[in-house]
């Protein structure tokens, strides 16, 4: 919303302060001001230029050769605008002058003729955001005079960022109420020098004026109230400069004096109005009704619409002539030929307007106001002001009677406000009189309450004499009548907000109070995330946060589709973390990074055909997962030697640490695809990436994670890239609260024995380990392979795995004999059960 500061001052002469100060006050107390634009600040060189003659340029069809009078001698000026005419005045910059943006005007030759300056458009002057030619000024200004007076300059434009609740601030009077000293009492809209005081012809559904114009509301839900006035004998033409200046400053494009008058009242008072060409209304009559299927309407913007029953229209005796509360029709539009007007001032239902605007695909200033609610009590005065402005700028004679159809304005709501509650919520020691002093300037009427229900008269004038004002005891609720323009205020707490912001948020003390700690324990998911992050950080992984939307091709089974995605590449939600993380690996490869070690903690989603999800979200699964991906050298490169590449055992080690430190999981060597699925959660999607080397994490027999080598066809790898290893597991498997238990340190030394075993292919180290642990005494406290060797001397199909066995007893030093006996038993077992023999050296 663009607000003209000159306009505010015209409405409320007491408003002072610079535009920046006004903007700061509004921003703190009412609505953010995005920017303050100074209009005309850079127009010091622009003067009124009178074109005394205009002829076609001899050598260019689209150029005009003008003789321009601008204070001194008459100058030759070449002009490219289509609308330049003789005997008219325009803004003019003589040679040597500058335009906004430090654009310097020089004397220069255009198609062989020297041009001495430039005639300007609104856009070139920095006043309008668009223009279709140079800006014609009214006659009567002295050529050579500064252009500021003619353009209503200087002015400043406050660009408001309106919040949805304060539609009243989408008008100058609404902003003036916030800023005027004394508030509403300081507002006096300037007179246009004419006065119209009609008699109202009322009708519940139908009413007619003396000269035969009738208005019928067929649908009182969609249109509860409709006012109309007839003005005959107007002369449609350009508006006077002051009016056009007002509209331009408020961001609205001047059209003609009648349309400008309706727009002026909208911008000033917040009441949308529409002027019909009375001669084009069949009947003449107005019928407010639902459109019928098959009807059509071409709107002012030239678009043709097919209508249906959901849309609300203004129709004449035969056809729709406007979308109610949204936009008028083209063939009843006010034009240069119009002499008689019907001016509409209506109340349209917010929901109906929303449906009509959406159905027509139109969003206008009028629909903005109706969707949010207008001031029903100000409709008569808005129509009067519009008719008076038409009389002032377009002439014409209004009818002595005006039409008013529909219900009475709704009674103004009366809201009880307890001073004690104000103090409780705000923590300020405010007396009832203080509260009243803050509310009254905004137009709230305050009466001391007796606790009784209000009589419902609402807008009664009883509080005017002062005796009735809110002077009751502080414990009594005050009865506050809400003005018609504040439809957002319906409850006590709404009034408390008014009190708080008028008091000024910055005037509240900032005093810490004693607090009670939260009765809500932290959700365990956060401790889980912390534990994972610490481990991953220690392992040298970097945290990724990737977008949860992925292309359908990147998702696994049963993805959750967005009903209205932003694009095909972000059309579904990820079903697992590894494939999107592999995209991140490729991104790094694309930037020459060979070493990529990433982890991510994120939510994955899937549709669950079986149902069983939480109530109302049945059919949707979501699960928080942890994923890790490794590729490249195991350590940063170092001068002392070559760095090995990461391999499957780096990944295995990571998962072992997760298992040992974070979870209660067992790690098993799995096979890709088979059974690697956590029931009741989105699939791990391993079929899309897992290669030959695979691990599965089991928690109490249930798969909670998978990992292994990434298949080469799952990635588009440059030739220099290393093998990629990835894993994904459920965050829910992490047990953050595991409490370590102290075990007494050994009191006696241990004895180590190394066994180099020749192992036939097909027997995994894991089998040997499990077997040895099965037969070993409890004195075996350590068992790990420390060397794996393959060589021709072992014979084909064999390898040597060297194990270190550590024995220790809790209560004595083991003797060599005891250890030899244990070793012998293990060796025997290996030979007899697994055909594994000790290597002869």
């Amino acid at each position, binding site marked *: 919303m663009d607000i003209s500061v000159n306009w505010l001052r015209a409405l409320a002469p007491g408003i002072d302060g610079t535009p920046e100060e006004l903007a700061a006050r509004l921003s703190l107390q009412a609505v953010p001001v995005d920017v303050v634009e100074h209009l005309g600040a850079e127009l010091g060189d622009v003067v009124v230029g009178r074109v005394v003659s205009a002829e076609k340029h001899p050598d260019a069809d689209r150029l005009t050769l003008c003789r321009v009078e601008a204070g001194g001698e008459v100058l030759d000026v070449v002009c490219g605008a289509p609308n330049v005419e003789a005997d008219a005045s325009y803004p003019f910059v003589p040679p040597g002058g500058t335009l906004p943006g430090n654009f310097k005007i020089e004397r220069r030759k255009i198609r062989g003729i020297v041009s001495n300056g430039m005639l300007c458009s609104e856009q070139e002057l920095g006043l309008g955001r668009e223009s279709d030619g140079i800006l014609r000024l009214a006659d009567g200004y002295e050529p050579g005079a500064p252009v500021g007076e003619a353009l209503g300059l200087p002015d400043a434009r406050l660009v408001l960022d309106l919040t949805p609740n304060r539609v009243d601030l989408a008008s100058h009077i609404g902003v003036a109420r916030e800023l005027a000293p004394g508030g509403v009492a300081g507002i006096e809209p300037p007179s246009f020098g004419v006065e119209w005081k009609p008699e109202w012809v009322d009708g519940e559904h139908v009413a007619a004026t003396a000269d035969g114009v009738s208005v019928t509301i067929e649908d009182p839900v969609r249109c509860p109230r409709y006012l109309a006035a007839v003005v005959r004998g107007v002369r449609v033409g350009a508006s006077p400069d002051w009016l056009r200046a007002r509209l331009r400053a408020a961001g609205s494009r001047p059209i003609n004096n009648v349309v400008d008058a309706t727009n002026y009242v909208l911008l000033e008072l917040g009441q949308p109005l529409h002027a019909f060409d009375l001669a084009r209304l069949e009947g003449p009559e107005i019928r407010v009704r639902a459109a019928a299927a098959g009807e059509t309407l071409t709107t002012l913007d030239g678009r043709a619409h097919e209508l249906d029953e959901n849309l609300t229209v203004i129709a004449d005796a035969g056809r729709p002539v406007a979308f109610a509360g949204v936009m008028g029709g083209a063939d009843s539009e006010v034009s240069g030929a119009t002499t008689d007007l019907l001016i509409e001032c209506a109340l349209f239902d917010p929901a109906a307007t929303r449906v009509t605007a959406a159905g027509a695909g139109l969003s206008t200033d009028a629909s903005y106001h109706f969707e949010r609610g207008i001031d029903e009590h100000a409709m008569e005065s808005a129509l009067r002001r519009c008719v008076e402005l038409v009389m002032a700028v377009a002439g014409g004679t209004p009818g002595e009677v005006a039409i008013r159809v529909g219900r009475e304005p709704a009674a103004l709501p009366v809201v009880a406000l307890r001073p004690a509650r104000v103090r409780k919520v705000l923590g300020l020691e405010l007396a009832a009189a203080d509260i009243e002093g803050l509310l009254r300037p905004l137009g709230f009427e305050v009466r001391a309450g007796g606790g009784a229900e209000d009589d419902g008269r609402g807008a009664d004038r009883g509080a005017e004499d002062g005796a009735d004002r809110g002077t009751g005891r502080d414990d009594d609720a005050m009865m506050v009548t809400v003005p018609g323009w504040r439809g957002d205020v319906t409850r006590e707490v709404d009034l408390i907000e008014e009190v708080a912001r008028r008091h000024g948020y910055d005037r509240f003390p900032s005093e810490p109070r004693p607090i009670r700690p939260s009765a809500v324990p932290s959700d365990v998911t956060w401790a889980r995330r912390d534990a994972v992050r610490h481990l991953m950080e220690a392992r040298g992984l970097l945290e990724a946060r990737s977008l949860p939307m992925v292309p359908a091709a990147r998702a696994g089974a049963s993805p959750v589709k967005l009903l209205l995605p*932003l694009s095909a590449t972000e059309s579904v939600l990820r079903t697992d973390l590894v494939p999107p993380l592999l995209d991140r690996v490729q991104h790094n490869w694309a930037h020459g990074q060979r070493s990529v070690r990433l982890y991510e903690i994120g939510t994955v989603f899937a549709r669950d055909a079986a149902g069983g999800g939480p109530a109302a979200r049945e059919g*949707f699964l979501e699960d928080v997962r942890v994923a890790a991906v490794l590729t490249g050298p195991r350590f940063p490169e170092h001068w002392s030697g070559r760095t090995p590449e990461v391999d499957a055992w780096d990944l295995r080690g990571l998962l072992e640490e997760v298992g040992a430190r974070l979870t209660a999981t067992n790690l098993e060597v799995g096979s890709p695809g088979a059974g690697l699925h956590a029931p009741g959660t989105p699939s791990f999607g391993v079929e899309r990436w897992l290669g030959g080397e695979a691990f599965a994490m089991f928690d109490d027999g249930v798969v909670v994670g998978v990992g292994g080598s990434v298949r080469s066809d799952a990635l588009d790898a440059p030739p220099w890239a290393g093998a990629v290893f990835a894993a994904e597991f459920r965050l829910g498997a992490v047990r953050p609260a595991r409490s370590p238990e102290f075990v007494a340190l050994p009191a006696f030394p241990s004895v180590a024995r190394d066994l180099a075993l020749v192992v036939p292919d097909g027997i995994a180290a894991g089998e040997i380990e499990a077997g040895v642990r099965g037969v070993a005494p409890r004195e075996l406290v350590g068992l790990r392979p420390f060397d794996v060797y393959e060589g021709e001397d072992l014979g084909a199909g064999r390898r040597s795995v060297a194990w270190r066995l550590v024995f220790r007893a809790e209560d004595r030093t083991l003797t060599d004999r005891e250890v030899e006996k244990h070793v012998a038993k293990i060796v025997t077992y290996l030979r007899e059960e697994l055909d594994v023999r000790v290597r002869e050296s």
Partner: protein
Amino acid sequence: MTNAGSKADGRSLEDRLRKLQSDGLTAFAAAEDADALEAARVRFTGRSGELSDIMGGMRDLDPAERPVIGRLANEVKGALEAAYDQRAGALAGPADGSRGGDDLSLPGRRAWPGGRHPVTLVIDEICEIFAELGFTRAAGPEIETDWHNFTALGIPLDHPAADMHDTFWLDEHVLLRTHTSPVQARVMMESKPPIRVVVPGLCYRRDPFDASHAPAFEQIEGLAVDEGIDFVEFRAAIDFFVRRFFGPGTKTRFRASYFPFTEPSAEVDVTCFLCGGSGCAACKGTGWIEIMGSGMVDPVVFEECGLDPERYTGYAFGMGPARIAMLRYRIPDIRLLYEADVRFLEQFL
């Protein structure tokens, strides 16, 4: 065995040990490859090697001499094993022959650095500060019902306020949460006050992915509900947070605003932490940066969630950690936060 039946004397064993040490060290150092080294190991310290032989001879020593010679034997054994390990390491080392010698100015050996995402750093810090004010951390689902996301928070589905949330719908009443505020509703329905929680989490809005918008982004929400909480306490809590997070000299500015689930509502600005309030590009010359939306919890929210609005009052606030991270670390484009570029992430270790 070489002790030939005669009672060994300590002197000769001592001499042999010293010679063994000297020979062994020379042999290990001279080993040209792993085979030669292994041969030397077998000869000197192997199970049937010279050291074993000498130690076998200790059985015949005079008991008084045994501890002395035993200690010496252990020393020799340790020295030889250390020499063996050193040589074995050197032989297993780089094949290209590069050696650092004694040039300690060469860079040291490092591990890969791991670390948290900059947005996580900001979230963690915010949670830590509010933990000092007694706030715990809550969580909730990302797929939500329209009731939790809108209705429970006082936002009618057909109200223009819903326009502020351009929503990703998944089904008729199911959506991706547009803010973390539905967790407020969940917490209030499940717990009795005093409630003090912060809720970090991912939220979704139909914003095209560009330099300053992302369709999914982190938000952190806070909620305090108890008897006797007023606007003064709310201001004090926010001021405490701001000074902790942005520095002790930082000022706050509360501006009137509108949120359907708070009343009174306020936008909170802080003095620009980049220019100190004098005006810069980050604060668009104003000296202030908007960091959160906040306010006193609207009674309609208490009613929807089954708490008595006459008895309880509270405040709520919401911030965008990604936005704060971008301002704090001067990250010009939000998309950098999602790319997982290693060169980017390594800047925040």
